C-alpha cells in the first residue's frame, strides 16, 4: 500500500498518469476559501506564465502556470477552485476534493499551498483541518495580515506553524511581500519530500477524529474539527485590548442598536429627502420654465395652423405631461445618488437589519423585509419577489401589505404638491409620507396577522452584515443610471398612453356640450370631465371635491407616473386660450384646494397625498397580485386599500382642518 504522502512528480505540460513519477516539474496546487486572495497570489507567483484550461478528464477550468520557487526545477502551479470544505457542493469543489482526497487522482498535487485569510482564520482552519487529514504535504500562505492588523488581530505565525505541523508564511501578494519566503518554504518541502519520504510531519495538536461517534459520523467529525479550530485559535490568535471592535463594529453599535437603530434610519431618510428637495428645487424650476416657456411656445407657434384637437394632444397633452415629468429628472438623480451612496457604503444592509428586527418583534415574517425594501423602488418586482417566501400564507400576507410601500413613482406627486403648498418644509412633508408608508405597512401587517393570518408563526432568520466601505463612483453611477433609466422608460410609456387616453376622452363631448364637435369641447364637458366630476363628490369629506383631483387619482389608478402629467394636462387644457397660465400650475392648484376645502387647503392637500399613498399603486401591481395571490385575495386587497385610503384621507382632513 503506497503512502499517500509519497510525492507524485508530474510534468507541467501534460499531467497524465503515464508521466507520473518521472523526473520533471512537480505539481503545486493553490487551495483555499473563496475571496482570500488565492488568485491574486497565483497571479503574483506566475506573472505572465499562465494559461486557463480544463483539468484533464474534467470540465472544470483551472488556471495553471509555471512558478520558479527559489532555485531548481520550476513547478507547475494550479489555482484550484475556492472551497470552504472538502465536502463538495459543485463540480469545481468536487475537483478540489478529488485531487486532495483520492491518492490515485490524475494530476494529484505533490504539495498544496493553502491560502488562509488571517482576518477570518476560523473559516480557513476548518478547510485546513480537512486537508491535513488527507495527508497531503502542505504550506500555509497567510494572507490579509494587514486587514487583520487593522482590526487589532494578531496571528502568531510560529505558533500556528507549530499547531498545524506545517510551515506558515505571511504574504501580501499585491505588494509581492513574502513571496520569496513562500518559494523557499515550498522548495524545502518538496526537497524534504523527495529525500525523506518516511518523515511525516505531525501537528502539535492531534485531531480527535479517529473514531467518529454517534449516528452521524460526518457531523461528529465536523464537531471534532470545529473544536480543534477553536483550540488552535485560542493559542495563535490574539486581539489587541480595546481593538476587538472594528470601526464597523463601533458604528454598528449605534446604527443597529435597539434604541437608536430606528431613529438613525429615520434621520438618514429625512436627510435624503430634505437634501433631495432642497438641492433639486432650482434645477427643477429652471427646467420647468424651459418646458413651459421656449418649448411650449415653439410647439404652439409651429402648430399654429394645425387643428385644435392636434394642438391639444401635442402641446397640452404630450409636451405638458411629459415635460412636467422631465422636470423631476434632477430630483430623481439626486435621490438615487444619495440612496446609492447609503447602499454602497453598507448602511442599507443595517437599515434592513433594523427593519427586520422591528418586523419580527411585531410578529411579521422575517423575510418580509426583502420585498418591502424592493417596494420602495417599485411595487411590481416586490410582488414578483414574493416567490422567495416558501410559505403560501406568508406570501399572501406580505403581498397584501406591499402596495402600502411608497414607490418612487409616488415621489413625484409628493414633491409637486409639497413644493407648491409647503415651500421650504417640502422635504419634511415627503419624509412624513414615507414614514406614514412604513407605519401603514406595519399597522396593516399587524392587523392582517391578528385577523386573517393568525396561524402564521415567526421564521428563523439571521443576517450577515457586510463591513462598511467607501462608496465607489463606478457603482454609485451605475446604480443611479440604472434606476433613472428604468423610471424614465416606464414613465415615458405610461405617460404617452395615458395622456393619449385622457386626451381622447376629453375630446369627446357629453351632455351640455353635445352640440360641440370632437376635439373642440371644453374638457369639463367631455366624457373625461364628466367621469371625473361624477367621482369627485366621494372626496368631499376629505376636502378635495374637485374634478381635477379626481381625474389625477383616476389616471393614478393606472400608474402613479401619470398623475403629474394629468394634473398638468387638465389645468393646461382647462383654459387653452390662456397659454400664459401654463406656468402657473402652482397658483391653479392653490385655487382648487382653497375652493374645494372651504378654506383649509393644507389639510386637504395632505389628505390628497395620504389617499394617493394608500390606494391601489397601479394596474401592474393588480396584475402581479392576481398572478401571485389569485383573484379573490387581489380583490380583497384592493378593497382594503381603497377603504383604508379613503378613511385616512377623511381623518387627516377632518382633524387637520381643526387647526389649519
Amino acid at each position, binding site marked *: 500500500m503506497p503512502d499517500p504522502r509519497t510525492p507524485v512528480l508530474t510534468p507541467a505540460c501534460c499531467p497524465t498518469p503515464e508521466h507520473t513519477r518521472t523526473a520533471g516539474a512537480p505539481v503545486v496546487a493553490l487551495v483555499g476559501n473563496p475571496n482570500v486572495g488565492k488568485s491574486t497570489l497565483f497571479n503574483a507567483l506566475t506573472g505572465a506564465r499562465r494559461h486557463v484550461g480544463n483539468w484533464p478528464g474534467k470540465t472544470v477550468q483551472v488556471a495553471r502556470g509555471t512558478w520558479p520557487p527559489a532555485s531548481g526545477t520550476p513547478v507547475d502551479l494550479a489555482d484550484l477552485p475556492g472551497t470552504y470544505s472538502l465536502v463538495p457542493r459543485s463540480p469545481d469543489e468536487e475537483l478540489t476534493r478529488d485531487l486532495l482526497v483520492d491518492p490515485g487522482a490524475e494530476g494529484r498535487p505533490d504539495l498544496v499551498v493553502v491560502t488562509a485569510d488571517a482576518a477570518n482564520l476560523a473559516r480557513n482552519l476548518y478547510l485546513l483541518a480537512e486537508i491535513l487529514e488527507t495527508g497531503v504535504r502542505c504550506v500555509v500562505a497567510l494572507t490579509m495580515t494587514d486587514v487583520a492588523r487593522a482590526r487589532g488581530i494578531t496571528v502568531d505565525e510560529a505558533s500556528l506553524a507549530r499547531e498545524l505541523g506545517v510551515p506558515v508564511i505571511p504574504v501580501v501578494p499585491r505588494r509581492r511581500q513574502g513571496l520569496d519566503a513562500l518559494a523557499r518554504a515550498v522548495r524545502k518541502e518538496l526537497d524534504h519530500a523527495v529525500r525523506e519520504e518516511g518523515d511525516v510531519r505531525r501537528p502539535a495538536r492531534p485531531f480527535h477524529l479517529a473514531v467518529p461517534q454517534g449516528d452521524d459520523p460526518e*457531523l461528529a467529525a465536523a464537531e471534532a474539527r470545529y473544536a480543534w479550530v477553536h483550540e488552535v485559535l485560542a493559542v495563535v490568535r490574539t486581539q489587541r485590548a480595546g481593538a476587538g471592535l472594528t470601526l464597523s463594529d463601533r458604528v454598528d453599535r449605534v446604527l443597529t442598536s435597539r434604541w437608536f437603530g430606528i431613529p438613525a434610519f429615520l434621520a438618514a431618510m429625512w436627510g435624503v429627502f430634505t437634501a433631495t428637495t432642497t438641492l433639486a428645487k432650482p434645477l427643477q424650476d429652471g427646467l420647468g420654465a424651459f418646458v413651459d416657456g421656449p418649448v411650449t411656445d415653439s410647439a404652439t407657434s409651429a402648430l399654429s395652423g394645425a387643428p385644435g384637437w392636434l394642438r391639444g394632444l401635442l402641446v397640452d397633452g404630450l409636451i405638458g405631461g411629459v415635460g412636467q415629468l422631465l422636470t423631476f429628472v434632477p430630483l430623481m438623480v439626486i435621490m438615487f445618488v444619495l440612496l446609492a451612496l447609503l447602499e454602497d457604503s453598507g448602511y442599507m444592509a443595517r437599515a434592513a437589519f433594523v427593519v427586520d428586527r422591528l418586523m419580527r418583534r411585531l410578529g411579521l415574517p422575517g423575510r418580509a423585509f426583502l420585498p418591502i425594501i424592493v417596494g420602495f423602488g417599485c411595487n411590481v418586482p416586490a410582488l414578483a419577489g414574493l416567490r422567495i417566501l416558501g410559505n403560501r400564507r406568508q406570501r399572501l400576507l406580505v403581498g397584501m401589505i406591499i402596495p402600502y410601500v411608497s414607490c418612487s413613482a409616488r415621489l413625484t406627486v409628493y414633491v409637486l404638491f409639497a413644493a407648491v403648498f409647503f415651500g421650504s418644509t417640502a422635504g419634511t412633508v415627503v419624509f412624513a409620507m414615507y414614514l406614514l408608508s412604513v407605519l401603514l405597512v406595519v399597522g396593516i401587517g399587524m392587523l392582517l396577522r391578528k385577523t386573517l393570518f393568525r396561524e402564521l408563526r415567526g421564521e428563523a432568520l439571521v443576517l450577515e452584515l457586510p463591513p462598511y466601505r467607501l462608496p465607489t463612483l463606478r457603482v454609485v453611477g451605475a446604480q443611479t443610471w440604472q434606476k433613472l433609466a428604468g423610471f424614465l422608460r416606464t414613465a415615458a410609456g405610461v405617460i404617452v398612453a395615458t395622456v393619449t387616453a385622457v386626451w381622447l376622452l376629453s375630446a369627446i363631448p357629453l351632455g351640455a356640450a353635445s352640440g360641440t364637435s370632437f376635439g373642440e369641447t371644453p374638457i369639463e364637458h367631455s366624457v373625461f370631465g364628466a367621469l371625473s366630476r361624477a367621482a369627485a363628490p366621494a372626496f368631499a369629506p376629505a376636502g378635495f371635491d374637485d374634478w381635477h383631483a379626481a381625474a389625477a387619482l383616476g389616471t393614478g389608478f393606472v400608474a402613479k407616473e401619470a398623475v403629474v402629467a394629468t394634473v398638468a394636462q387638465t389645468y393646461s387644457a382647462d383654459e387653452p386660450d390662456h397659454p400664459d397660465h401654463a406656468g402657473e400650475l402652482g397658483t391653479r392648484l392653490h385655487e382648487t384646494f382653497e375652493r374645494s376645502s372651504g378654506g383649509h387647503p393644507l389639510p386637504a392637500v395632505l389628505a390628497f397625498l395620504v389617499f394617493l399613498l394608500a390606494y391601489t399603486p397601479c394596474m401592474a401591481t393588480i396584475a402581479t397580485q392576481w398572478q401571485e395571490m389569485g383573484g379573490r385575495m387581489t380583490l380583497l386587497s384592493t378593497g382594503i386599500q381603497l377603504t383604508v385610503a379613503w378613511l385616512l384621507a377623511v381623518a387627516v382632513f377632518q382633524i387637520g382642518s381643526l387647526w389649519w
Partner: protein
Amino acid sequence: MVSVPTHPAAHPTVSPLRRILVEIHRGGSLDDVAARIGVAPDEAAAMVDYWVGRGVLTREAVSGGCPPAGCGGCALRSSCAAPGLTGASPGLTGRPLLHTIRPADPPRE
C-alpha cells in the same frame, strides 16, 4: 437526519455546531449568534458554511427579488427600475451585500 437540540440551555454539553441551529431561530445578526454560542464571529460563519453544505441552512445574498440568473431571465426587465439592495445587474458587482441565513425551505406548497 441531523439531530438538533430544542434549546441550548437544556443541553449545556451540546456542541456549538449544533447550538448554532437553535440560535438561528432567535434571529439577529451572525455576530449576535456567535456571542450567544461563545465562539468568534468567523467561527460562527464557518459553522454556517458547514450546515449550508449539508443543505440544512441556506445563505443568500439579498437579491431584491431578482432572479438568481440575473436580469436576463426576468420578465420584468423592461420595466424594472432595478430597485432593492443588490439587483442582479451587471456593473454592480462588488457592493457590500447583506446575506440572510435561515433553515432551508421545505418543499414549496
